[in-house]
């Protein structure tokens, strides 16, 4: 046991905070991620992450905790996307890519200016790649509360989201306010991205959103099982990432620990690739042109 958990692990304050906050955020991200991938909005998630980079850098520049920057810019971007009517399966559009490039250029500027005026070392790295062990204590309640709000929102909208991803027309015909529901989801997505950015960095946050969800979709068939599987994968990746990150303080070469975000992302990607080992995955029921026969048989008792 001593070899897995280096001394002081369980007693360490930052570790406990990291585990608690990390778990809540991992679960939220995973569940939101399942709906994101189902609705074909992965690219929106990626865009929000880039915009969050700008937000975090801007927050750093004005001396505010980067979570507020991630959140404000993310929410703003989500509102903008909703206004211009982001269609569902918008792929990697050139337009979006170029506009995001401007956002990243702005992030470069904010980071540069911020480092000129601030004494905090390593701020760029923290914003880009996260720092789960140095979460500001005063932000912890906010982080957990935001995560719960996003999670509850998505769970409350779960059925409606599934119905509208099946067919927006059917949903609209049943009286679902499809546009409003989409907007609410986009906001929950922005919050998720902001939260993931806090713990593994804006640049890597997409992994926590999409990875566990994509893995779960390969393993589970029903929405409930997919959400549970995704949450499990995300939480596992965060826990292992934290353990390894803590242990790595004793590892070469630098004696200051490997980034937790590196472990988390590698574990998530590894987990996803592992699902490909089940080759020759058979489908539940082979297709046979027997539908007519079945219909007839179903007819007879009636």
């Amino acid at each position: 046991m001593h070899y897995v958990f280096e001394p002081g692990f369980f007693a360490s304050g930052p570790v406990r905070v990291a585990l608690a906050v990390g778990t809540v955020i991992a679960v939220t991200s995973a569940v939101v991620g399942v709906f994101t991938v189902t609705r074909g909005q992965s690219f929106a998630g990626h865009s929000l992450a880039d915009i969050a980079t700008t937000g975090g850098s801007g927050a750093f520049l004005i001396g505010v905790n980067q979570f507020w920057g991630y959140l404000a810019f993310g929410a703003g971007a989500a509102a903008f996307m909703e206004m211009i009517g982001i269609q569902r399966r918008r792929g990697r559009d050139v337009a979006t890519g170029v506009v995001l490039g401007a956002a990243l250029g702005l992030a470069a500027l904010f980071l540069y200016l911020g480092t000129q005026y601030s004494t905090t070392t390593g701020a760029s790295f923290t914003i880009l790649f996260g720092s789960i062990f140095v979460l500001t204590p005063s932000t912890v309640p906010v982080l957990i509360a935001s995560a719960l709000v996003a999670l509850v929102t998505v769970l409350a909208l779960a059925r409606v989201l599934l119905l509208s991803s099946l067919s927006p027309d059917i949903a609209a015909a049943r009286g679902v306010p499809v546009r409003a529901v989409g907007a609410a989801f986009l906001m929950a997505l922005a919050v998720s991205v902001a939260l993931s950015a806090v713990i593994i960095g804006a640049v890597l946050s997409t992994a926590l959103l999409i990875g566990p969800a994509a893995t779960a979709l390969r393993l589970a068939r029903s929405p409930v099982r997919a959400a549970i599987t995704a949450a499990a994968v995300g939480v596992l990746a965060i826990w292992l990432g934290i353990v390894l990150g803590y242990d790595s303080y004793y590892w070469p070469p630098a004696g200051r620990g490997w980034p937790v975000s590196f472990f988390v992302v590698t574990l998530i990607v590894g987990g996803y690739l592992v699902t490909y080992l089940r080759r020759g995955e058979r489908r539940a029921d082979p297709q046979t042109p027997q539908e007519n026969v079945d219909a007839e048989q179903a007819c007879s008792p009636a």
Partner: protein
Amino acid sequence: MFTGVMANTWITATMVAVIAGVMGFFAVLRGSTFAAHAIPNGAFAGAAGAGLLGLNVFAGLAVFSVAGALGIAALSRRARSDVATALTFVMMLGIGALFVSWSSQYAQEAYSLLFGEVFGVSTGEVLPIIGFGLACIAAIIVMFRPLMLSSALPEVAAARGVPARRMDLAFLLVMALATSMTVPVVGALLMFSLMIGPAAAARSLTARPGLAMALSVVIALVTVWIGIAASYQSNWPLGFFVGVLGALFYLGGKGYAAVRSGAPAGQRARA
């Protein structure tokens, strides 16, 4: 502003802009702009790793860029690989973060690899960049006609015996070379802006391929030159200017095209 170390900067940046303009033209034509998003991530990891090991940064860049290009070529053949490719390239960023964290100047290095660092380019670094640039140009000249054909009219090219997959691979490999020279100058996260922005803008302005390619190069050059001058004066990072100018030129091109075509024919009747 034009002497000494800055001379190196101007030469390097000019070369980079020319190559970016040409490669971007083809990338937009082929619709494979994703490579311009993904390969730089691998380049970031490679540069970080090489820097750590004290190896030539360009070697690291080249190796990882080529690996990334081969990876894209391999993965693009699998049916449902969107997620796999996205995750792999995020992982490249994670690995780069790891390498960078081992260096003593990790914040500074992360910043310069992701957002670019064109000043203080030593003569020792100018030569590899020019070398890559010339290699790219040579490759493009050799491949020009089959590349144009397979990019613009893939079915015709296939009928004429131009092997599509080999063209794809060749294009990706040249893209890897172009990446290796562009990333040190504008950064991994902004390469897309320099390569695709001007090219897409040029595409909106003209349909003629020769003119579009020339315009693409011109816009890229203007972007970079304004960027360097502004960066020199203000000390603000070049990446900022490249990102913003890239977007401005792109939107300008789209706006011009929209205005020129008159009122949008958007009164689409319901089918």
